[in-house]
Protein backbone atom coordinates (compact mmCIF):
# COMPACT_ATOMS: atom_id res chain seq x y z
CA UNK A 1 0.00 0.00 0.00
CA UNK A 2 1.32 3.44 -0.89
CA UNK A 3 1.25 6.34 1.57
CA UNK A 4 -1.41 7.95 -0.58
CA UNK A 5 -3.62 4.82 -0.34
CA UNK A 6 -3.14 4.73 3.44
CA UNK A 7 -4.17 8.38 3.70
CA UNK A 8 -7.27 7.75 1.57
CA UNK A 9 -8.28 4.80 3.72
CA UNK A 10 -7.87 6.72 6.97
CA UNK A 11 -9.85 9.61 5.47
CA UNK A 12 -12.67 7.24 4.55
CA UNK A 13 -12.83 5.72 8.04
CA UNK A 14 -12.71 9.22 9.53
CA UNK A 15 -15.68 10.27 7.39
CA UNK A 16 -17.70 7.16 8.35
CA UNK A 17 -17.02 7.77 12.04
CA UNK A 18 -18.20 11.36 11.66
CA UNK A 19 -21.53 10.12 10.29
CA UNK A 20 -21.87 7.43 12.99
CA UNK A 21 -21.23 9.99 15.74
CA UNK A 22 -24.54 11.79 15.12
CA UNK A 23 -26.61 8.62 15.39
CA UNK A 24 -25.37 7.12 18.63
CA UNK A 25 -25.50 7.38 22.44
CA UNK A 26 -23.36 9.86 24.37
CA UNK A 27 -21.00 7.13 25.63
CA UNK A 28 -20.46 5.78 22.11
CA UNK A 29 -20.12 9.33 20.79
CA UNK A 30 -17.24 9.89 23.19
CA UNK A 31 -15.55 6.71 21.95
CA UNK A 32 -16.05 7.83 18.35
CA UNK A 33 -14.59 11.25 19.14
CA UNK A 34 -11.51 9.56 20.62
CA UNK A 35 -11.14 7.30 17.58
CA UNK A 36 -11.56 10.27 15.23
CA UNK A 37 -8.92 12.25 17.13
CA UNK A 38 -6.49 9.32 16.87
CA UNK A 39 -7.11 9.08 13.13
CA UNK A 40 -6.63 12.84 12.72
CA UNK A 41 -3.23 12.61 14.38
CA UNK A 42 -2.28 9.65 12.18
CA UNK A 43 -3.34 11.59 9.08
CA UNK A 44 -1.25 14.58 10.04
CA UNK A 45 1.74 12.37 10.93
CA UNK A 46 1.55 10.65 7.54
CA UNK A 47 1.01 13.77 5.48
CA UNK A 48 3.10 16.36 7.34
CA UNK A 49 5.27 14.46 9.84
CA UNK A 50 8.47 14.49 7.79
CA UNK A 51 8.23 18.19 7.10
CA UNK A 52 7.53 18.90 10.77
CA UNK A 53 10.50 16.84 11.91
CA UNK A 54 12.73 18.69 9.43
CA UNK A 55 11.51 21.99 10.91
CA UNK A 56 12.30 20.78 14.42
CA UNK A 57 15.76 19.62 13.40
CA UNK A 58 16.41 23.03 11.86
CA UNK A 59 15.23 24.88 14.99
CA UNK A 60 17.37 22.68 17.22
CA UNK A 61 20.43 22.86 14.95
CA UNK A 62 20.66 26.57 15.74
CA UNK A 63 21.29 25.62 19.37
CA UNK A 64 23.99 23.03 18.86
CA UNK A 65 27.57 23.76 17.80
CA UNK A 66 27.86 20.09 16.77
CA UNK A 67 26.17 19.72 13.38
CA UNK A 68 26.15 15.94 13.68
CA UNK A 69 24.25 15.82 16.96
CA UNK A 70 20.82 14.18 16.64
CA UNK A 71 17.74 16.27 17.59
CA UNK A 72 17.15 14.02 20.61
CA UNK A 73 20.76 14.49 21.76
CA UNK A 74 20.33 18.27 21.43
CA UNK A 75 17.15 18.10 23.53
CA UNK A 76 18.91 16.05 26.23
CA UNK A 77 21.83 18.47 26.29
CA UNK A 78 19.59 21.54 26.53
CA UNK A 79 17.50 19.89 29.25
CA UNK A 80 20.59 19.26 31.37
CA UNK A 81 21.85 22.82 30.93
CA UNK A 82 18.44 24.31 31.78
CA UNK A 83 18.30 22.26 34.97
CA UNK A 84 21.79 23.39 35.98
CA UNK A 85 20.75 27.02 35.56
CA UNK A 86 23.09 27.64 32.62
CA UNK A 87 20.32 28.92 30.31
CA UNK A 88 18.09 30.93 32.68
CA UNK A 89 15.68 33.05 30.63
CA UNK A 90 17.86 32.67 27.49
CA UNK A 91 15.82 34.19 24.60
CA UNK A 92 17.44 32.03 21.87
CA UNK A 93 16.67 28.82 23.77
CA UNK A 94 13.16 30.03 24.45
CA UNK A 95 12.52 30.82 20.78
CA UNK A 96 13.77 27.39 19.67
CA UNK A 97 11.73 25.54 22.32
CA UNK A 98 8.66 27.59 21.45
CA UNK A 99 9.08 26.81 17.76
CA UNK A 100 9.43 23.09 18.53
CA UNK A 101 6.32 23.26 20.75
CA UNK A 102 4.33 24.87 17.93
CA UNK A 103 5.52 22.29 15.40
CA UNK A 104 4.57 19.43 17.77
CA UNK A 105 1.14 20.96 18.34
CA UNK A 106 0.68 21.30 14.60
CA UNK A 107 0.75 17.51 14.47
CA UNK A 108 -1.01 16.56 17.69
CA UNK A 109 -3.64 19.31 18.12
CA UNK A 110 -3.55 22.27 15.72
CA UNK A 111 -6.91 23.50 17.09
CA UNK A 112 -5.21 24.31 20.40
CA UNK A 113 -2.73 26.49 18.54
CA UNK A 114 -5.54 28.28 16.70
CA UNK A 115 -7.34 29.07 19.98
CA UNK A 116 -4.12 30.23 21.64
CA UNK A 117 -3.22 32.60 18.83
CA UNK A 118 -6.76 34.05 18.46
Amino acid at each position, binding site marked *: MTQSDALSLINLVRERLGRAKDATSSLNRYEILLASAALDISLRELSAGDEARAGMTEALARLSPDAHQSPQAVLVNISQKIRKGQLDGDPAIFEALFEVAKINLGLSNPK*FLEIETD
Partner: protein
Amino acid sequence: MSDYLSSTEEQKLRDYLVHRSGAKRVDIIEVHRLDGGAIQENLSLDLNFDAGPMRGRQSFVLRRDAATKVLASRSREQEFNLLKAAWDAGVKVPEPLWLGVADEVFARPFYIMRKISGEARGHILTKPGAIDDPNALARDLGIQLARIHKIPAKELAGLSFLGEPPEDPIICDIAAYRAYLDSCPLAYPAFEWGLRWCELHAPQAPSSGAPSAPVLLHRDFRTGNYMVEDGRLVGILDWEFASWGDPMSDLGWFCAACWRFNGREREAGGIASREAFYEGYELESGTSVDHENVLIWEVMAHLRWAIIALQQGARFSEGHELSLDLALTGRIRPDELSYAVLQMTRPDRWSTSAAERPGS
Protein backbone atom coordinates in the same frame (compact mmCIF):
# COMPACT_ATOMS: atom_id res chain seq x y z
CA MET B 1 -24.66 -11.60 36.91
CA SER B 2 -24.10 -8.07 35.51
CA ASP B 3 -21.51 -6.89 32.98
CA TYR B 4 -19.44 -5.51 35.84
CA LEU B 5 -19.78 -8.13 38.56
CA SER B 6 -19.32 -11.89 38.31
CA SER B 7 -22.04 -14.01 39.97
CA THR B 8 -19.63 -14.80 42.83
CA GLU B 9 -18.85 -11.09 43.30
CA GLU B 10 -22.54 -10.24 43.21
CA GLN B 11 -23.34 -12.80 45.93
CA LYS B 12 -20.40 -11.64 48.06
CA LEU B 13 -21.47 -8.01 47.62
CA ARG B 14 -25.04 -8.83 48.75
CA ASP B 15 -23.68 -10.61 51.85
CA TYR B 16 -21.37 -7.70 52.56
CA LEU B 17 -24.21 -5.17 52.29
CA VAL B 18 -26.48 -7.25 54.54
CA HIS B 19 -23.73 -7.45 57.15
CA ARG B 20 -22.90 -3.72 57.01
CA SER B 21 -26.42 -2.33 56.83
CA GLY B 22 -28.21 -4.52 59.35
CA ALA B 23 -30.74 -5.58 56.70
CA LYS B 24 -31.84 -9.20 56.27
CA ARG B 25 -31.95 -9.02 52.51
CA VAL B 26 -30.43 -6.66 49.93
CA ASP B 27 -31.46 -6.79 46.28
CA ILE B 28 -29.14 -5.44 43.62
CA ILE B 29 -31.52 -3.78 41.18
CA GLU B 30 -29.06 -2.26 38.74
CA VAL B 31 -25.31 -1.91 38.31
CA HIS B 32 -23.63 0.26 35.72
CA ARG B 33 -20.27 1.83 35.22
CA LEU B 34 -20.02 5.61 35.57
CA ASP B 35 -18.09 7.78 33.09
CA GLY B 36 -14.57 8.95 33.91
CA GLY B 37 -12.15 7.35 36.33
CA ALA B 38 -8.99 6.45 34.39
CA ILE B 39 -7.42 5.46 37.69
CA GLN B 40 -10.42 4.09 39.56
CA GLU B 41 -13.57 2.37 38.44
CA ASN B 42 -16.86 3.75 39.75
CA LEU B 43 -19.91 1.50 39.72
CA SER B 44 -23.36 2.93 40.27
CA LEU B 45 -25.44 0.58 42.48
CA ASP B 46 -29.22 0.76 42.77
CA LEU B 47 -30.15 -1.35 45.79
CA ASN B 48 -33.14 -2.28 47.87
CA PHE B 49 -32.76 -2.92 51.61
CA ASP B 50 -35.59 -4.77 53.35
CA ALA B 51 -34.85 -3.45 56.84
CA GLY B 52 -32.42 -1.48 59.01
CA PRO B 53 -31.36 2.18 58.77
CA MET B 54 -31.02 1.92 54.97
CA ARG B 55 -34.49 0.43 54.50
CA GLY B 56 -35.91 1.05 51.03
CA ARG B 57 -34.31 1.91 47.74
CA GLN B 58 -30.84 3.47 47.82
CA SER B 59 -28.37 4.71 45.22
CA PHE B 60 -24.71 4.20 46.06
CA VAL B 61 -21.36 4.35 44.26
CA LEU B 62 -18.82 1.58 44.66
CA ARG B 63 -15.27 2.71 43.97
CA ARG B 64 -12.57 0.16 43.20
CA ASP B 65 -9.14 0.21 41.52
CA ALA B 66 -8.76 0.19 37.75
CA ALA B 67 -6.28 -2.30 36.27
CA THR B 68 -3.27 -0.03 36.88
CA LYS B 69 -2.70 3.15 38.80
CA VAL B 70 -0.79 6.41 38.49
CA LEU B 71 2.09 7.18 40.82
CA ALA B 72 1.03 9.21 43.88
CA SER B 73 -2.53 7.96 43.72
CA ARG B 74 -3.99 6.98 47.13
CA SER B 75 -5.28 3.52 48.02
CA ARG B 76 -9.04 3.03 48.38
CA GLU B 77 -8.66 2.71 52.16
CA GLN B 78 -6.73 5.98 52.37
CA GLU B 79 -9.22 7.69 50.07
CA PHE B 80 -12.12 6.48 52.24
CA ASN B 81 -10.46 7.90 55.36
CA LEU B 82 -9.86 11.23 53.59
CA LEU B 83 -13.48 11.37 52.49
CA LYS B 84 -14.61 10.60 56.04
CA ALA B 85 -12.38 13.36 57.47
CA ALA B 86 -13.82 15.81 54.94
CA TRP B 87 -17.40 14.70 55.68
CA ASP B 88 -16.80 15.10 59.43
CA ALA B 89 -15.33 18.59 58.82
CA GLY B 90 -18.50 19.71 57.02
CA VAL B 91 -17.05 19.71 53.51
CA LYS B 92 -19.59 18.99 50.77
CA VAL B 93 -18.66 15.44 49.74
CA PRO B 94 -20.64 12.26 49.05
CA GLU B 95 -21.30 10.56 52.39
CA PRO B 96 -18.74 7.74 52.85
CA LEU B 97 -20.50 4.60 54.07
CA TRP B 98 -18.40 1.45 54.23
CA LEU B 99 -14.88 0.31 53.43
CA GLY B 100 -14.25 -3.19 52.11
CA VAL B 101 -10.86 -4.83 52.58
CA ALA B 102 -9.07 -7.02 50.03
CA ASP B 103 -10.81 -10.37 49.35
CA GLU B 104 -13.92 -9.35 51.28
CA VAL B 105 -15.80 -9.01 47.98
CA PHE B 106 -13.15 -8.28 45.35
CA ALA B 107 -9.45 -9.13 45.28
CA ARG B 108 -8.66 -5.47 46.00
CA PRO B 109 -10.07 -2.99 48.56
CA PHE B 110 -13.07 -0.85 47.69
CA TYR B 111 -15.48 1.51 49.38
CA ILE B 112 -19.08 2.54 49.08
CA MET B 113 -20.45 6.06 49.30
CA ARG B 114 -23.84 7.63 48.79
CA LYS B 115 -24.47 8.63 45.19
CA ILE B 116 -24.92 12.32 44.49
CA SER B 117 -26.59 13.54 41.35
CA GLY B 118 -25.74 16.43 39.07
CA GLU B 119 -23.25 17.44 36.41
CA ALA B 120 -19.48 17.21 36.81
CA ARG B 121 -18.22 17.36 33.22
CA GLY B 122 -15.94 20.35 32.75
CA HIS B 123 -16.83 21.08 29.14
CA ILE B 124 -20.54 21.26 30.11
CA LEU B 125 -20.17 23.32 33.30
CA THR B 126 -17.96 25.91 31.57
CA LYS B 127 -20.33 26.56 28.66
CA PRO B 128 -21.60 30.17 28.73
CA GLY B 129 -24.89 30.28 30.63
CA ALA B 130 -24.53 26.76 32.04
CA ILE B 131 -24.75 28.08 35.62
CA ASP B 132 -27.24 30.74 36.71
CA ASP B 133 -25.03 32.39 39.31
CA PRO B 134 -21.43 31.39 38.57
CA ASN B 135 -19.98 33.77 41.17
CA ALA B 136 -22.06 32.12 43.92
CA LEU B 137 -20.77 28.71 42.83
CA ALA B 138 -17.16 29.97 42.75
CA ARG B 139 -17.59 31.52 46.20
CA ASP B 140 -18.92 28.23 47.59
CA LEU B 141 -16.02 26.35 46.01
CA GLY B 142 -13.65 28.79 47.74
CA ILE B 143 -15.43 28.14 51.06
CA GLN B 144 -15.23 24.35 50.62
CA LEU B 145 -11.54 24.49 49.72
CA ALA B 146 -10.76 26.56 52.81
CA ARG B 147 -12.71 24.02 54.88
CA ILE B 148 -10.54 21.21 53.47
CA HIS B 149 -7.40 23.18 54.32
CA LYS B 150 -8.62 23.52 57.93
CA ILE B 151 -9.02 19.76 58.48
CA PRO B 152 -6.78 18.92 61.47
CA ALA B 153 -5.14 16.08 59.53
CA LYS B 154 -2.23 15.72 61.95
CA GLU B 155 -4.62 14.93 64.79
CA LEU B 156 -6.63 12.29 62.93
CA ALA B 157 -5.39 8.72 63.38
CA GLY B 158 -7.01 7.60 60.11
CA LEU B 159 -4.80 10.03 58.19
CA SER B 160 -1.44 9.01 59.68
CA PHE B 161 -0.49 7.62 56.24
CA LEU B 162 0.03 11.24 55.14
CA GLY B 163 3.30 11.29 57.08
CA GLU B 164 5.02 14.56 57.89
CA PRO B 165 4.34 17.74 55.87
CA PRO B 166 7.21 18.74 53.55
CA GLU B 167 9.35 21.65 54.73
CA ASP B 168 9.30 23.31 51.33
CA PRO B 169 6.39 21.98 49.22
CA ILE B 170 7.29 23.60 45.90
CA ILE B 171 10.94 22.47 46.01
CA CYS B 172 9.74 18.96 46.94
CA ASP B 173 7.36 18.90 43.97
CA ILE B 174 10.02 20.18 41.57
CA ALA B 175 12.40 17.42 42.72
CA ALA B 176 9.69 14.78 42.24
CA TYR B 177 8.84 15.97 38.71
CA ARG B 178 12.52 16.07 37.73
CA ALA B 179 12.97 12.53 39.06
CA TYR B 180 10.08 11.38 36.87
CA LEU B 181 11.47 13.19 33.80
CA ASP B 182 14.80 11.43 34.44
CA SER B 183 13.01 8.10 34.14
CA CYS B 184 11.47 8.98 30.75
CA PRO B 185 13.00 7.71 27.51
CA LEU B 186 12.73 11.17 25.89
CA ALA B 187 13.89 14.62 27.04
CA TYR B 188 11.35 17.38 27.70
CA PRO B 189 13.28 20.68 27.73
CA ALA B 190 10.11 22.83 27.81
CA PHE B 191 9.16 21.20 31.13
CA GLU B 192 12.73 21.59 32.38
CA TRP B 193 12.48 25.27 31.44
CA GLY B 194 9.25 25.64 33.41
CA LEU B 195 10.60 23.76 36.43
CA ARG B 196 13.71 25.93 36.49
CA TRP B 197 11.51 29.05 36.34
CA CYS B 198 9.46 27.76 39.27
CA GLU B 199 12.62 26.93 41.21
CA LEU B 200 13.94 30.48 40.70
CA HIS B 201 10.64 32.14 41.49
CA ALA B 202 9.56 29.84 44.33
CA PRO B 203 8.36 31.66 47.41
CA GLN B 204 10.54 31.09 50.45
CA ALA B 205 9.58 28.10 52.60
CA PRO B 206 6.65 29.23 54.76
CA SER B 207 6.81 29.28 58.52
CA SER B 208 4.18 27.46 60.57
CA GLY B 209 0.95 29.45 60.73
CA ALA B 210 1.79 31.52 57.63
CA PRO B 211 -0.91 31.60 54.90
CA SER B 212 1.11 29.11 52.86
CA ALA B 213 2.24 26.79 55.68
CA PRO B 214 1.59 23.15 54.68
CA VAL B 215 -2.00 21.95 55.14
CA LEU B 216 -4.04 18.99 53.90
CA LEU B 217 -4.60 19.53 50.18
CA HIS B 218 -7.19 17.96 47.92
CA ARG B 219 -4.64 18.16 45.06
CA ASP B 220 -7.18 17.62 42.31
CA PHE B 221 -9.60 20.42 43.19
CA ARG B 222 -10.72 21.55 39.74
CA THR B 223 -13.68 21.82 37.42
CA GLY B 224 -14.52 18.25 36.43
CA ASN B 225 -14.05 17.00 39.98
CA TYR B 226 -17.09 18.51 41.66
CA MET B 227 -20.78 17.92 41.11
CA VAL B 228 -23.25 20.72 40.44
CA GLU B 229 -27.03 20.41 40.49
CA ASP B 230 -29.34 23.32 39.61
CA GLY B 231 -26.33 25.63 39.69
CA ARG B 232 -25.39 24.65 43.24
CA LEU B 233 -22.39 22.69 44.45
CA VAL B 234 -23.40 19.26 45.78
CA GLY B 235 -20.08 17.50 46.29
CA ILE B 236 -16.31 17.51 45.87
CA LEU B 237 -15.11 14.29 44.23
CA ASP B 238 -11.87 12.39 43.52
CA TRP B 239 -9.71 12.49 46.63
CA GLU B 240 -7.07 10.12 45.32
CA PHE B 241 -4.21 12.65 45.25
CA ALA B 242 -4.78 14.32 48.65
CA SER B 243 -1.60 15.09 50.57
CA TRP B 244 0.27 17.82 52.42
CA GLY B 245 1.29 21.00 50.65
CA ASP B 246 1.07 24.74 50.19
CA PRO B 247 -2.62 25.75 50.32
CA MET B 248 -2.02 28.18 47.46
CA SER B 249 -1.21 25.20 45.23
CA ASP B 250 -4.83 23.99 45.42
CA LEU B 251 -5.96 27.50 44.40
CA GLY B 252 -3.42 27.48 41.56
CA TRP B 253 -4.62 24.08 40.35
CA PHE B 254 -8.23 25.32 40.35
CA CYS B 255 -7.43 28.56 38.48
CA ALA B 256 -4.86 27.13 36.03
CA ALA B 257 -5.74 27.80 32.39
CA CYS B 258 -5.39 24.09 31.56
CA TRP B 259 -8.47 23.33 33.70
CA ARG B 260 -10.81 26.01 32.37
CA PHE B 261 -12.27 23.92 29.51
CA ASN B 262 -14.64 26.19 27.50
CA GLY B 263 -14.25 29.16 29.86
CA ARG B 264 -10.71 30.31 29.20
CA GLU B 265 -11.45 33.92 30.13
CA ARG B 266 -13.12 32.94 33.44
CA GLU B 267 -10.11 32.44 35.66
CA ALA B 268 -11.79 30.52 38.48
CA GLY B 269 -12.02 27.08 36.93
CA GLY B 270 -13.57 28.38 33.72
CA ILE B 271 -16.82 29.18 35.53
CA ALA B 272 -16.43 32.59 37.20
CA SER B 273 -14.13 35.41 38.21
CA ARG B 274 -11.10 34.73 40.32
CA GLU B 275 -12.31 37.36 42.81
CA ALA B 276 -15.45 35.42 43.76
CA PHE B 277 -13.43 32.26 44.39
CA TYR B 278 -10.81 34.13 46.44
CA GLU B 279 -13.58 35.89 48.41
CA GLY B 280 -15.11 32.57 49.49
CA TYR B 281 -11.72 31.18 50.41
CA GLU B 282 -10.75 34.23 52.47
CA LEU B 283 -14.12 34.34 54.21
CA GLU B 284 -13.85 30.74 55.43
CA SER B 285 -10.10 30.55 56.06
CA GLY B 286 -9.69 33.92 57.73
CA THR B 287 -6.43 34.38 55.76
CA SER B 288 -5.57 36.39 52.66
CA VAL B 289 -4.93 34.68 49.36
CA ASP B 290 -1.34 35.21 48.23
CA HIS B 291 -2.13 35.97 44.60
CA GLU B 292 1.50 36.05 43.39
CA ASN B 293 2.05 32.67 44.98
CA VAL B 294 -1.10 31.31 43.32
CA LEU B 295 0.23 32.43 39.92
CA ILE B 296 3.47 30.50 40.47
CA TRP B 297 1.42 27.45 41.45
CA GLU B 298 -0.52 27.83 38.20
CA VAL B 299 2.72 27.24 36.29
CA MET B 300 3.37 24.28 38.60
CA ALA B 301 -0.17 23.05 37.85
CA HIS B 302 0.63 22.86 34.14
CA LEU B 303 3.86 21.01 34.91
CA ARG B 304 2.11 18.59 37.23
CA TRP B 305 -0.60 17.84 34.68
CA ALA B 306 2.16 17.31 32.12
CA ILE B 307 3.84 14.72 34.36
CA ILE B 308 0.50 12.96 34.96
CA ALA B 309 -0.19 12.97 31.20
CA LEU B 310 3.24 11.44 30.53
CA GLN B 311 2.49 8.77 33.15
CA GLN B 312 -0.89 8.05 31.58
CA GLY B 313 0.72 7.84 28.13
CA ALA B 314 3.31 5.43 29.51
CA ARG B 315 0.54 3.15 30.82
CA PHE B 316 -0.49 2.75 27.19
CA SER B 317 2.92 2.72 25.50
CA GLU B 318 4.38 0.24 27.98
CA GLY B 319 1.48 -2.10 27.23
CA HIS B 320 -0.19 -2.05 30.68
CA GLU B 321 -3.50 -0.75 29.33
CA LEU B 322 -4.64 -0.63 25.71
CA SER B 323 -6.76 2.49 26.19
CA LEU B 324 -7.28 5.06 23.45
CA ASP B 325 -8.02 7.64 26.14
CA LEU B 326 -4.62 7.11 27.77
CA ALA B 327 -2.84 6.98 24.40
CA LEU B 328 -4.31 10.33 23.33
CA THR B 329 -3.65 11.98 26.68
CA GLY B 330 -0.01 10.95 26.42
CA ARG B 331 0.21 12.11 22.80
CA ILE B 332 -1.65 15.44 22.96
CA ARG B 333 -1.49 16.93 26.46
CA PRO B 334 2.32 17.15 26.81
CA ASP B 335 2.42 19.19 23.57
CA GLU B 336 -0.33 21.55 24.74
CA LEU B 337 1.25 21.91 28.15
CA SER B 338 4.75 22.53 26.72
CA TYR B 339 3.32 25.42 24.73
CA ALA B 340 1.35 26.79 27.72
CA VAL B 341 4.30 26.53 30.13
CA LEU B 342 6.57 28.38 27.71
CA GLN B 343 3.92 31.08 27.21
CA MET B 344 3.75 31.64 30.98
CA THR B 345 7.53 31.75 31.43
CA ARG B 346 8.71 33.88 28.52
CA PRO B 347 12.21 35.38 28.95
CA ASP B 348 10.82 38.74 30.11
CA ARG B 349 9.13 36.95 33.03
CA TRP B 350 12.38 35.70 34.54
CA SER B 351 13.56 37.74 37.50
CA THR B 352 17.23 37.15 38.13
CA SER B 353 17.68 38.88 41.43
CA ALA B 354 16.66 37.14 44.65
CA ALA B 355 15.11 40.40 45.86
CA GLU B 356 12.64 40.32 42.97
CA ARG B 357 11.33 36.89 43.91
CA PRO B 358 7.98 36.54 45.63
CA GLY B 359 8.28 35.93 49.35
CA SER B 360 11.74 37.53 49.58
